[in-house]
C-alpha cells in the first residue's frame, strides 16, 4: 500500500515500526504518517509555579510539522513534567479553554502553530494570562468572569407572534447577533483589556466579553429588556476608551469594539446625554 511507505529523513516513532494488525490498515497508514513528517528540536520557556510565584523553566522537545503550542506543552507534560498544569479541552479552537500568553501575545495554544513563531531557533515563551489571579503553571483563576454574567439582565423575548406559536426572524437580523454569539469565552479580550489588566477595575467594569454579551442581547431581534441604564452604571461601558486591543486578540475575529462596544456607547449617549432625544422621550411617554 502506497500510503504506508516510510519517509526518508526523520526517525520513525515506535507506532510506525510496529507490525500492523489485520483489521487496522487505516490505523497503520496513519501511524506511517508520523514517520513521514518533518521533525525538529525546539526550545520552550514555560511559566512554572503556584499562586503568583514562579519562573520561566526551560524545556526542549521534539516537534513535528504542523504542531501547535498546545501539542508541545502536552508532550512536555507527558514526557518531562507530568504535573505541568494546563487547561484545555477541544484542541480545535472551539471551547476557549487554552488561553495563554505566547511570546507575550494572548492567544489560544491550540490554534497557534509553532511554524508561525519565528525565528525557529529562538525559544517559545508560554505564560499564563496575566490579568487573572494565578493558580498554577499555565492555569489562572477565571471565575470572576463567571460571576459577572448572572449580573446582566437575562434574555427576555417578546411573546410569540407567528400563527404557529413561534417567531419569524430574517437572516439579515440574525446575522448581526450571530457574530457576537461566535464568542467562545476564552477571555483573551478580558486579559488584554487595560481597564482590567492594568487598572483592576473588576468591580466597575464588566470587560469586553460581557459587553459583547450585552450587545448580543440588546440586538437580539426578540429581546425586550432594556440594559442601557445598567450598561452605564453597573457595567461601566464608559471606561472603555476604544483602544481595540480586545478586537486584535479575538480568535473568532469578532469586531468587538466597532460592532459591539461602540453601538452600546451610542445607546447610552442617546438615552442619557441627548437633550433632544430626552424631550422626545418625555413627550412620547406623556402621549401613552
Amino acid at each position: 500500500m502506497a500510503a504506508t511507505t516510510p519517509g526518508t529523513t526523520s526517525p520513525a516513532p515506535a507506532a510506525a515500526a510496529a507490525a500492523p494488525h489485520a483489521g487496522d490498515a487505516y490505523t497503520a497508514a496513519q501511524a506511517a504518517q508520523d514517520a513521514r513528517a518533518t521533525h525538529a528540536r525546539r526550545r520552550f520557556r514555560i511559566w512554572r509555579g503556584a499562586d503568583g510565584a514562579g519562573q520561566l523553566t526551560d524545556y526542549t522537545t521534539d516537534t513535528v510539522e504542523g504542531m501547535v503550542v498546545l501539542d508541545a506543552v502536552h508532550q512536555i507534560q507527558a514526557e518531562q513534567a507530568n504535573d505541568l498544569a494546563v487547561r484545555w479541552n477541544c484542541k480545535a479552537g472551539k471551547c476557549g479553554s487554552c488561553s495563554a500568553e505566547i511570546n507575550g501575545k494572548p492567544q489560544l495554544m491550540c490554534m497557534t502553530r509553532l511554524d508561525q513563531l519565528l525565528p525557529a531557533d529562538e525559544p517559545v515563551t508560554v505564560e499564563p494570562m496575566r490579568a487573572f489571579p494565578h493558580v498554577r503553571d499555565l492555569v489562572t483563576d477565571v471565575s470572576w468572569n463567571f460571576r459577572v454574567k448572572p449580573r446582566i439582565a437575562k434574555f427576555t423575548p417578546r411573546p410569540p407572534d407567528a400563527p404557529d406559536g413561534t417567531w419569524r426572524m430574517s437572516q439579515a437580523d440574525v446575522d448581526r447577533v450571530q457574530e457576537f454569539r461566535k464568542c467562545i469565552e476564552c477571555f483573551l479580550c478580558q486579559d488584554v483589556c487595560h481597564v482590567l489588566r492594568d487598572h483592576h477595575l473588576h468591580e466597575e467594569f464588566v470587560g469586553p466579553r460581557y459587553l459583547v454579551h450585552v450587545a448580543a442581547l440588546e440586538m437580539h431581534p426578540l429581546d425586550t429588556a432594556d440594559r442601557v441604564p445598567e450598561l452605564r452604571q453597573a457595567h461601566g461601558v464608559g471606561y472603555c476608551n476604544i483602544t481595540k486591543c480586545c478586537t486584535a486578540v479575538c480568535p473568532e475575529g469578532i469586531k468587538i469594539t466597532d460592532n459591539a462596544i461602540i453601538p452600546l456607547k451610542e445607546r447610552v449617549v442617546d438615552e442619557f446625554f441627548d437633550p433632544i432625544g430626552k424631550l422626545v422621550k418625555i413627550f412620547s411617554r406623556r402621549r401613552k
Partner: protein
Amino acid sequence: MIDYQTVSHDVLVVGAGGAGLRAAIEAAAGGASVGLVCKSLLGKAHTVMAEGGIAAALANVDDRDSWRVHFADTMRGGQYVNNWRMAELHAREAPDRVRELEAWGALFDRTTDGRILQRNFGGHRYPRLAHVGDRTGLEMIRTLQDHGVHQGIDVHMECTVLTLLTDGGRVSGAFGYDRERGRFRLFRAKAVVLATGGIGRAYKITSNSWEYTGDGHSLAYHAGAALQDMEFVQFHPTGMIWPPSVRGILVTEGVRGEGGVLRNSEGRRFMFDDVPENYSAQTASDEEEGWRYTQGDKSARRPPELLTRDHVARCIVREVREGRGSPHGGVFLDISWIKEKLPNAADHIRRKLPSMYHQFMQLAGIDITKEPMEIGPTTHYVMGGVRVDGDTQMSTVPGLFAAGECAAGLHGANRLGGNSLSDLVVFGKRAGEHAVRFAASNGAAGVDEAQVEAAARTALEPFSRAGSAEQPYEVQDTLQECMQDLVGIVRTGREMEEALGCIGTLTGRAARVFVRGNREYNPGWHTALDLGHLLTVSEAITRSALERRESRGGHFREDYPDRDPSFAAFNFVVRKGDGGEMRVERAPIPPMPDELKAVIEEMK
C-alpha cells in the same frame, strides 16, 4: 481521617454539557436544589464541538417530514436494536426542545420566510437539522448556560467525581475532588443524574477531548448499574488526518450535507460503488441527482456520501486498504468542486462552513474553497452506555439517572448525525424531571463513611508509590493504541482476545502508577485517576464486541462480516458480578407496539 468538604443537594447532575445543563435546568424548575458538577469550566463541555445541527422534524424546509419519518430513520440507522420507546419519544419531542432553545435565546439560521432553517444530514430522509452555520453545539451550550445561570443552580466547576455512593442499593451521592486545590468534596444527594458524555479517549485517533474518559459509564457500572450496547462505537468518517498533530479533529458531516463529495486517489466517487440494500431506494443513482438533492430538489434522492456514518467509515477504510487512499492515508473530501455549479461558491462555503474554513486554513494551511481536504475515520461517539428506562432515564440503580451520550438505547447500533444534540435536550429534560420526582418521593439516603474513606485512600495512593517507574501517561497511551489497533473499525475475535490480555496487563500497571507533585491542579494525578474509568469501559467494549458474533452498525467483524437476524432480538448488557468480574448477558428487546411497527413498515 480524611479531610473533605460536604455539600447537599436534592439532585446532583454530573456533567455540564447539553444533557447535564438541560437536566439541571429542569430539576431547578421543578423546585429542587441542584448541584451541577463540571469536569472543566462551565460552557466548555464537548457539546461545543458539535457542528452540523440538531435533528428535529420541524418540517420547515420539507413539509413531508414528521416525527414518524424521524422515528423510522433513527430505527433504520440504529439497525433496529434501539430502545424503540426512546426513539419514539425523541422523534416526538425534539421539535419542542428546539423551539424551547429559541425561546431561551438561541439564534438558528433562517429560512427565507423567517423560520428555523434545516439542513441535510446522513441517514435523515428530509432536511432536518436546525443549525447555526457549523457551530450549532456552541449555540446550544451557550443558550443553556446563559439560561441556567439565572436558575439558582450551584455549579461546581473543575470538579471530578471519583465514585458514586450507594445506600441499600440506591444512590445517595457522589465523592469527588476539586482540581484547583485538590480537595475532596462529598456530595449528598437524593438523586443523581449522570451526563458525562463518551469514551473517545480510550482510542488513539479521536475527535474527543481529554474529558471523554467514560466516567459516567464506569461510575454507574461500579455502583451496580447495567451498561448496554457497549460494542457499538461510532467512528466518524471524516476526521482531519494531516498534519499529525490535528489527526482526529472532526470535519462536520455538514460539508457533505452542503454538497461535499468523497473521492479516492483515482478521482472516483467511491461511495456509489457500495450502497446497502435497505438504503438503495433512498439513494441517488448518479452524481447529478445527488447534487440536486443537496440543493433542495424534493424529487431527488440523497447522494451516497450521506449514507450512515458506520457505512461511510468502512468504505473509506476499504479504499485506503486497497491502495486507493490519499497521500496521507485517508481519502479526499471536496467541497470546492461546487464552484462548477454555483456562482460565488467560495463565499457560500465560508458562510455555511465558517469554522471548517478557519480550521483547515489555520491548522493545515488548506483553503477548502479551492482544494479538497484529506480525511479519515475518527473515534467519535459511543452508542452504548448506562441502561435506562426509556421514559424516566433511570438506570437499574434506584435514584441514578443517565442522559445524553453516557446513556444507551436511542441510537441502537449506529447514531445518525444530528440525533445527539436532540438526544441531549429531550432526555436531559426527562432525566431532570424524573430525578426531581424521585428526590421528592424518596428523601435522603445515608452516606457510608467507610465508602468515602476508601475512595479517598484509593485516590491518594498514586502519590505514595515513589520508586515505581509506571507513568500515568504511558499507561494511557498504551491503552489507546491497544484499543485503536485491536478493537477499532474492523474487528476480529482473535485480536479482541489479544486486547483483553492487554487490558489485563494495563490494569496491573495502572495500579502501580506513580504521580509526582502535589494535589493542586495536577494533570498527572488526574490522568492516573482517569485510568480506572478508561480500563473499565475498554473492557466493556471488548467483551461486548466479542459476544456479538455478527456485524451491525458501528460494530464490524471481519470474522463475521454479515448481519445475523438472530442478534437483532436482544442487547448485550454488562454488569459487575458478585466477585467483581465483568459479566455480559443478553437482554431481550421487548416487542414493539403495532403502531410503531406500522410506522416502520410504511417508511420502508
